[in-house]
């Protein structure tokens, strides 16, 4: 006898979820959080791995300039753009959100340009980096966010925030001196300024939502 639960956990384990390794940040925590959500992630910086992935996670901390350089060097720019355009589930985290914009103020570098707009420096009258737990108000929808409460606390560490030109792409907001877009969604893409893998049970719930969304699209239910 196979229960519905067995089936869905088998589908989750069968997914190919690629965590993009470009020497940026704590990939181990991201991988562990995905494992908690029931998937067996592949941590890789090989562009070929993206071509047949069911879902991709772009983590990242640090500076936009050096991150873009590494993505270039590893030939990841076009594969990432292509994957996002396909509409398959994509999760950007922290710097992985900022890199989706056209440009980053930090070093004035061109980024992936998936979403029109810029990553801007947080106002200097505040303590920067914005570090700690802050409230996210979910104002829009995305299939991976179905089980999120309307508001919740998540862990932030960043000095820049995204300012998308298309206000419709912002589906979550946070206040720190100004009200900024802390969650962005576009098609299959979901990206957060906070670190869900560092945000306790609620963060793990976001990973579960992402994994289930990927499983549903992969034909598992």
């Amino acid at each position: 006898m196979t229960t519905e639960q067995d089936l869905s956990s088998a589908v989750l384990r069968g997914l190919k979820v690629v965590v993009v390794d470009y020497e940026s940040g704590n990939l181990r925590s991201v991988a562990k959080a995905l494992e908690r959500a029931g998937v067996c992630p592949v941590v890789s910086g090989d562009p070929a791995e993206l071509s047949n992935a069911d879902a991709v996670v772009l983590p990242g901390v640090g500076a936009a300039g050096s991150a873009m350089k590494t993505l270039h060097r590893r030939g990841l720019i076009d594969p990432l753009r292509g994957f996002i355009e396909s509409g398959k589930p994509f999760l950007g985290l922290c710097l992985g959100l900022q890199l989706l914009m056209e440009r980053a103020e930090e070093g004035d570098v061109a980024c992936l340009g998936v979403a029109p707009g810029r990553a801007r420096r947080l106002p200097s009258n505040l303590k920067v980096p914005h570090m700690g737990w802050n409230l996210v108000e979910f104002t829009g929808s995305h299939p991976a966010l179905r089980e999120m409460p309307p508001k919740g606390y998540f862990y932030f560490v960043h000095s820049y925030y995204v300012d998308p030109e298309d206000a419709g792409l912002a589906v979550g907001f946070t206040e720190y001196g100004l009200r900024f877009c802390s969650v962005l969604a576009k098609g299959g893409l979901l990206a957060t300024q906070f670190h869900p893998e560092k945000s306790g049970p609620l963060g793990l719930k976001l990973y579960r939502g992402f994994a289930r969304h990927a499983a549903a699209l992969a034909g598992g239910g």
Partner: protein
Amino acid sequence: MLTKRIIPCLDVKDGRVVKGVRFLDHRDAGDPVALAAFYDVEGADELVFYDITASADERGIMLNVVSRAAEQVFIPLTVGGGIRTVEDVRTMLKAGADKVSINTAAVENPRLIQEAAYAFGSQCVVLGLDARRVPDARPPRWEVRVRTGRGGGQPTALDAVEWAAKAAELGAGEIVVNSMDSDGARTGYDLALNRAVAEATPVPVVASGGAGNLCHLRQVLQEGKADAALAASIFHFGVYSIRQAKEHLARHGIPVRPV
């Protein structure tokens, strides 16, 4: 609104958690990985592992503790104690630490802060500041001390507040202010020291040393202007739960992440 953080600190020696009273007289308070997982569930906002022996041959034990904790803990983890080089920072980050705290080595070689911040970003570089009041100084002054893992440490000629400001300029993304006078005494944080550092630096300040009751936590987050309060024994020995601490702070109008 950004909340104030409550951070249990786990002093680790030979792979076990101990809590020193005034940095001496170590008592065993348990397995660091089990405690870390417990605090994650309890609602701690972050965790700090501090390697108090930090001799080279014991580094492997600490790395193992960090990597096992990182598998089970889904809140930020800071590791400190005996970090001397950029390579040490890299090793700890790879093991699963989110931030690395540097004390003595930063005093001896301030460029280490700059190099680590350049290599990994300011967000993961924490200055650990051990400070002791200069006796009878009016207005109060504090002196930086190094090698505090054993006894009272060694004096330096550095002014603690000036050093904190300098470290932030060099790229430290956070400063843990540890009062050597109040550490382990449970008589409250050094409010003047924390306030002075918080006002002199543009980065978040974590108060450490002296928590004996919930009122102390509140005082340092309000009067001491700290962004986070670190405590050890009041949590490890079950004097208060994280929930009790947060409820107390919330009643006093301090924003906290509800448990």
